[in-house]
């Protein structure tokens, strides 16, 4: 499982007369973990659709590894790119959670060997035998994500992967992504998200889109500490960065673990005064 590089060069796309992408240039190296943020209508989802072959750019070129996306169908792109949609209910159908998660690998002609491990990672082993619709809404989202991870793609494209999830579920998603990012065979990840706590844990680089263009491309540690830049996007820094800024912690920590380590030798006041 080798990471694949994403290259977008001068990509343009319009829905009829409405221009959604006005010339996107973006390179995501193999194994990079990138978050895509921006206001509604910035073109983030449209860009992700280009990466999986659901839309063809009207100008410019989009490649994943050595594959030119405009020459591939979405089911062919599925061999390299796993796309987790924002709303999972549009793909669940099998009789059990387990067989639904195995659907992707089976379509690709691969073994479903990764399925039990993925179910375990996302805390779905207990519901593996249930019908997907007998499982609560947020868990269905995890089922859909499990289906994508079980396909063992070299590129993961995620659209709001943590929306509606509780804390424990969010941590599982972060851990599952971290496991795949680690090591020499790191999976490339692009996640559209406005959950900056998730971005802090899962991404090293943040690309900001606005009005169909790339407005900024910065390391996560830098952007998450930039209150003004985030406010312009209608976002607030995650708690970790806020604590780091308020207490002047060294090294711009953005992971919860880093902040906890920095605070371990703190003296705490007894009351809230």
């Amino acid at each position, binding site marked *: 499982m080798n990471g694949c590089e994403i290259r977008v060069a001068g990509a343009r796309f319009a829905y009829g007369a409405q221009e959604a992408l006005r010339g996107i240039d973006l390179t995501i190296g193999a194994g990079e973990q990138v978050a895509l943020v921006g206001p509604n209508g910035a073109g983030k989802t449209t860009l992700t659709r280009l990466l999986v072959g659901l839309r063809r750019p009207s100008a410019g070129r989009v490649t994943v590894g050595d594959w030119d996306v405009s020459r591939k169908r979405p089911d062919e792109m599925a061999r390299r790119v796993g796309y987790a949609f924002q709303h999972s209910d549009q793909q669940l159908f099998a009789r059990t959670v387990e067989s639904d998660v195995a659907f992707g690998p089976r379509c690709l002609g691969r073994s479903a060997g990764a399925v039990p491990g993925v179910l375990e990672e996302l805390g779905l082993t207990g519901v593996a035998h249930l019908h997907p619709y007998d499982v609560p809404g947020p868990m269905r989202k995890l089922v859909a994500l499990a289906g994508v991870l079980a396909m063992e793609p070299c590129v993961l494209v995620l659209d709001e992967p943590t929306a509606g*999830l509780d804390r424990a579920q969010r941590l599982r998603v972060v851990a599952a992504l971290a496991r795949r990012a680690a090591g020499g065979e790191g999976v490339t990840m692009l996640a559209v998200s406005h959950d900056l706590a998730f971005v802090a844990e899962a991404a090293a680089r943040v690309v900001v889109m606005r009005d169909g263009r790339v407005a900024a491309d910065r390391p996560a540690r830098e952007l998450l500490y930039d209150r003004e830049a985030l406010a312009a996007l209608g976002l607030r820094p995650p708690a970790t960065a806020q604590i780091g800024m308020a207490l002047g912690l060294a090294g711009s920590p953005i992971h919860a673990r880093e902040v906890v380590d920095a605070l371990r030798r703190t*003296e705490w006041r007894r009351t809230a005064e």
Partner: protein
Amino acid sequence: MTALIALEHVSFTYPGAARPALTDVSLELAAGDVLVVTGETGAGASTLLLVLAGFAPRVVGGHLSGSRSGTAQRCGVVFARPWTQLTGLCPTVRDEVAFGPASLGRPRDAVLAAAGRALEQLRIPHLADREPGQLSGGELQRVVVAAALAMGPDVLALDDPAAELDPEAADALYDLLPAIARAGTAVVVATPDLERAARVATRGVVLDAGRLVAQGAPAEVLDATDAAVIARAAGCPPPLPLDVPALVRRVAR
């Protein structure tokens, strides 16, 4: 003081389910409350909401033991996905919001007045003539809340209302809840999103596997916000700070 809704030793099982979704829950809701119900997915927060609002078992089916009583006459409900809660038949936001009062058979003028008031309460009178299908998620969700409030309910139950919204819209929605409670409609919110809920809650309830495991002031009970989790891990003694300013104030250096 008689509670708006009082649950005593309530257990509830969905139709055909092997295990109860709620076990032995006792809880009271009073006027002016903004009650936040939280817990892991599947812990029963959504079910508790349905029981409080009187939809379980009446509409949902299933079996309820224990007692539900109180002075509340009417309850409104709001779910996470805005577009599934619309009639799909109304050409304007005003029509959609007026749908509820029209169902009560009130005279036309009273219906339109109620719709207008609800739109004001949600700060969206400028959307009155817009087509619901053209609105953003955040705007649409406010229309849904206005539509529920237009009925003049005693209680408004919201199930993770900001799950589909971007952060600005989510903040705006939660910030409206205290005013709604003060205006005479008690609010109950089920959500895992404690960052926003803890800011507006007057009381908190935590469920675990269908049982009520904690109930009380937000500062004591809703301590699973990012700031609280970090503080706990860094050795901060209880009560844990729920947000970053509170955490910073507790640092003695």
